[in-house]
């Protein structure tokens, strides 16, 4: 029983970091209908910037973190200006492809500046785990749970009640019609990408903190999180939040119960199988909006 509970709880906390990274995806998807394949690189970039500030420039962690967020916001704006603006009005699939190109580009920049070797990341969380009842939880994950909760509220309010939030959703539906309303698609893109970059940077710093070391391989998290956001529904903030823990639990249960039976590897595959099953029942994820098809 304790074994089961531990797996469950661990799934939830580890999943919260999936949620955090997933939020970046959702924000971009919600405002541009684009699946951002460069998300992983944003994570890495954010973490490296924070690392450089704290280690090389000896900025206290708190300020370094804030500066990182500012940097990331600028990165988002820069990305919009240089890469996405010329693509306004182009088919979504080309935009998705552009993010793949962007990911190569960012990867090269990261490797060029910081190299490929594993670098130690400052110990931002005490190694001592916190106990929830009898169950130990790493502190890093607690922060990610916390950030996820805060962001959930912020984003839900933003997309529902602010004009920019609604305009973002409108832009995702049709850039042309949005333009005709006087909505500046450029601004919306810039806003969406900076928000996503900021969220990613938070995720990146937390992840690197949990790992203790940083190298480009962390970018794989971008890919890893795609099934999570699909599970929740690509355009749903709540979906990403719920999807992460579900994925985490699935992984843990598969790892705990199936792995010993099949000789390992189930932890990676089994969640996918469940995912497809869930999708056949709910084709737009748990909370994704259904694409309206009327004739």
């Amino acid at each position: 029983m304790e074994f089961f509970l531990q797996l469950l709880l661990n799934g939830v906390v580890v999943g919260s970091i999936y949620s955090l990274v997933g939020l970046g995806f959702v924000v971009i998807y919600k405002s541009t209908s684009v699946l951002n394949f460069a998300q992983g690189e944003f994570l890495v970039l954010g973490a490296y910037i924070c690392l450089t500030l704290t280690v090389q420039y000896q900025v206290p962690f708190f300020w370094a973190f804030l500066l990182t967020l500012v940097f990331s916001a600028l990165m988002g704006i820069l990305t919009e200006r240089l890469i996405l603006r010329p693509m306004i009005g182009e088919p979504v699939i080309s935009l998705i492809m552009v993010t793949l190109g962007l990911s190569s580009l960012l990867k090269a920049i990261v490797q060029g500046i910081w190299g490929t070797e594993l670098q130690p990341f400052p110990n931002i969380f005490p190694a001592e785990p916190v106990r929830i009842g009898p169950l130990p939880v790493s502190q890093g994950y607690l922060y990610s749970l916390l950030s996820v909760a805060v962001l959930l509220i912020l984003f839900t309010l933003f997309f529902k009640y602010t004009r920019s939030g609604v305009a973002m959703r409108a832009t995702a539906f049709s850039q042309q019609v949005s333009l005709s309303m006087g909505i500046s698609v450029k601004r919306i893109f810039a806003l969406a990408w900076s928000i996503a970059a900021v969220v990613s940077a938070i995720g990146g710093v937390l992840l690197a903190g949990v790992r203790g070391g940083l190298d480009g391989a962390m970018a794989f998290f971008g890919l890893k999180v795609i099934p999570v956001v699909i599970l929740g529904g690509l355009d749903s903030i709540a979906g990403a939040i719920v999807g992460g823990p579900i994925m985490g639990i699935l992984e843990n249960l598969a790892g705990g119960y199936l792995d010993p039976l099949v000789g390992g590897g189930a932890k990676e595959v089994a969640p996918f199988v469940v995912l497809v099953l869930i999708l056949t029942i709910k084709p737009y994820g748990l909370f994704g909006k259904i694409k309206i098809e009327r004739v």
Partner: protein
Amino acid sequence: MRCGDFRQSYAEDMSLFESPLPRVLLAGLLVFLLVLPGFASTYWLDVLSRIFIAIIAATGLNVVTGYTGLISLGTAAFLAVGGFATAAMAGKAGLPFVVVIPLSGLLTALVGLVFGIPSLRLKGLYLAVATLAAHYIVEFIVTHWDAMTGGVNGISVPPAHFAGLALSDDRSMYYLILPVMVGLLFFTKNLFRTKVGKAFVAIRDQDISAEVMGVDVFRYKLLSFAVSSFIIGVAGSLLAYQARLISPENFPITLAIDYLGMVIIGGLGSILGSIFGAIFITLLPEMLRLATDALGSYWPSLMVIVAPIKTGVFGLVVVLFLIFEPDGMAARWNHIKAYWKLYPFSY
């Protein structure tokens, strides 16, 4: 100068070529490709063979993604199925390649069919994730079914034999791959001017209206998956013959993404697009490496420094390319053609 089209019969209007000129050019290209091994170095033959295989697989992916509108991230998995099927049939059962290649294709088609089933309900990126699942499931099976696939260590593939000769060098591989590619391109090109292909495109453009036109949408989606994975399976089979040893590491998920890149950059829903895309994505790293190698040989210590530049330039080229030609290379090509056809009366 030709200043318009004059056609006498529907048959003529429906032919693949708009005028004799392209027909001649194509024939010329074929002859050139046939005699090329006479003077090209084996390295370049190898590069060409890889391009051909990429063209085949990209065409296969284009069938399902470009023409039918079902985004697939399963290309690497289907290549793997074709490859390991070949390894098993050629290696363990000792079958000749004329049987092995089509059978590998068929087996992959079957697998594709199974993974196409979610397309009954899933659309767009949600379906893409189902194919992503297909990738990981196939990978799991391939790494764990040691008896059949050699597991993580991979499995050797005996060279194809033709008339008692082992097709083990680059030249003979080239001659094995070229006709398969030409045949499959011919097949696909034709497919899309007849009923089945048109039904695929109809589903992509407007699935409700396709259904109302009498197209059994689900059946045709499955068919599209089957055709696509058949073609990719054949590519996988050729890949196995060429690589001679395949392991799960040959088919990472990034490969599937590369292929998606090929069809998007080349042009979705265009055979020519698959060809351009495959050439571009296969050749670009090769070219970049030649360039950085040249740099590296002048300043050896640069090797480590220029390596990421290669990745960066690749990304940059992709980005710039899409900015300037978001509809793919094939669209640009058609544009140029349209322009010159009417030249100098371009309006």
